[in-house]
């Protein structure tokens, strides 16, 4: 059945690439959210190659007042950053983040996937619920998969909204990531012997239970 379907469908030719480019342009223009290739193709006529159309469109918008940006595995049109001064009226009041929240965000971004215990180990203080909640609420971080360590603690990773907000194609494009990695500063070195601090990692049981209860509360 599948084969017949596919044969049948391939009888309808996909529209010319220039037309596909127009379609991608229209769809990206219509929304403020990044759109994935899959979503694009699901809207376009069968046989369309959204990826190629995107590549064309991206070139077309190079140097324009509006630019095609890659955000994770999605695409979005955004105004060129050098023209921000024209948009003072449109500026959204940005919520001030606490220093703890900013640091926690950076640690999640650079160390992801990272557990709460690891964040605490790096910052040297316990992470308050409110801090994590605020970042989750902004949809800048989300829960990742559990770590395969004793207690299987949950991890945090950054989201597509985070990438979109900071104009990043992927978390690999974080500023200074390479330097930090080669300097060994993204490692999670175990302390020799025992260091004091709020790292609850002494007791994996406890870590597991707090991690879980936090995930399942609220």
């Amino acid at each position, binding site marked *: 059945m599948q084969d017949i379907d596919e044969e049948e469908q391939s009888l309808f030719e996909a529209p010319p690439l220039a037309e596909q480019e127009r379609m991608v342009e229209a769809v990206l223009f219509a*929304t403020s959210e990044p759109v994935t290739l899959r979503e694009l193709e699901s809207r376009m006529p069968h046989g369309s190659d959204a990826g190629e159309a995107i590549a064309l469109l991206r070139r077309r918008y190079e140097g324009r007042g509006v630019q095609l940006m890659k955000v994770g595995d999605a695409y979005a049109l955004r105004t060129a950053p050098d023209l921000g001064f024209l948009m003072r009226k449109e500026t959204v009041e940005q919520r001030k983040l606490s220093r703890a929240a900013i640091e926690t965000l950076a640690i999640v*971004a650079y160390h992801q996937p990272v557990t709460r215990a690891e964040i605490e180990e790096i910052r040297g203080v316990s992470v308050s619920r409110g801090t994590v909640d605020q970042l989750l609420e902004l949809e800048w971080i989300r829960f990742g998969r559990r770590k395969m360590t004793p207690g299987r603690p949950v991890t945090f990773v950054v989201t597509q909204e985070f990438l979109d907000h900071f104009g990043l194609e992927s978390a690999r494009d974080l500023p200074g990531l390479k330097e930090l990695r080669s300097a060994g500063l993204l490692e999670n*070195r175990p302390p020799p*012997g025992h260091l004091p601090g709020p790292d609850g990692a002494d007791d994996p049981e406890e870590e597991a239970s707090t991690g879980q209860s936090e995930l399942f509360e609220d």
Partner: protein
Amino acid sequence: MADTIFEQDRTAVAERLAAEALIVDVDGFEGPLDLLLTLGRTQKVDLRKISVLQLARQYLAFVEKAKALRLELAADYLVMAAWLAFLKSRLLLPPDPADEGPSGEELAAHLAFQLERLQAMRDAAARLMARDRLGRDFFARGQTQDMQRTRRVTYTATLLDLMQGYARIRTRDEFRPFVMDRDAVYTMEQALERMRGLIGFAGGWSDLTSYLPDGWGADPVRRRSATASTFAASLELVKEGHLDIRQAEAFAPIELRRKD
């Protein structure tokens, strides 16, 4: 000469002020590591070349001062102080060959690493926040054309549904049960009228059932209806103040008496 003394005094004052500022600000620190980082910065060297021994001294001195000022320090600051005192002794004393734990240098190196890593994350956070940001420096489409999601609802029914529906109605017709058996119903109005005529004679307690109309006691259906309405009528008369009513216990006979 006088100048240098004055100079020394001045630095001493500045140091004291700085130390006091630190102590007063202790709430502003996010834990011992943050405090260590701030103290480390006063060494004015690359964090990688920091003297952990000196840092430990600075920290311990800080804690001493805080104690002298009777400031309450959180437990984790004191734990860190104890650990740094231990580290200090490790760094100062020649290594004990019998000791299997990590050397003072290893511990110091790790603390230096922690400080450097924390500083690196702070720098990274600052760089991140300084990036061009959506809604501040670059902007999304202002006039979004949200996807029109039209939801078309279609209704279906099968021929079987249709026939069963019809069958249901027709079947009901065939067994139309609405035969009103008025004969078996004794209304409350009837009971009330009867009771009003009878209560005048109820001087002593008498059973409710003795007030049932003639011919309604034998057939169970008629008896049930008459009992219910006579009871309801009695309650009405109690409410009006013409009757007393009582029942010794559940299911015991209900008795009535005229109220004077």
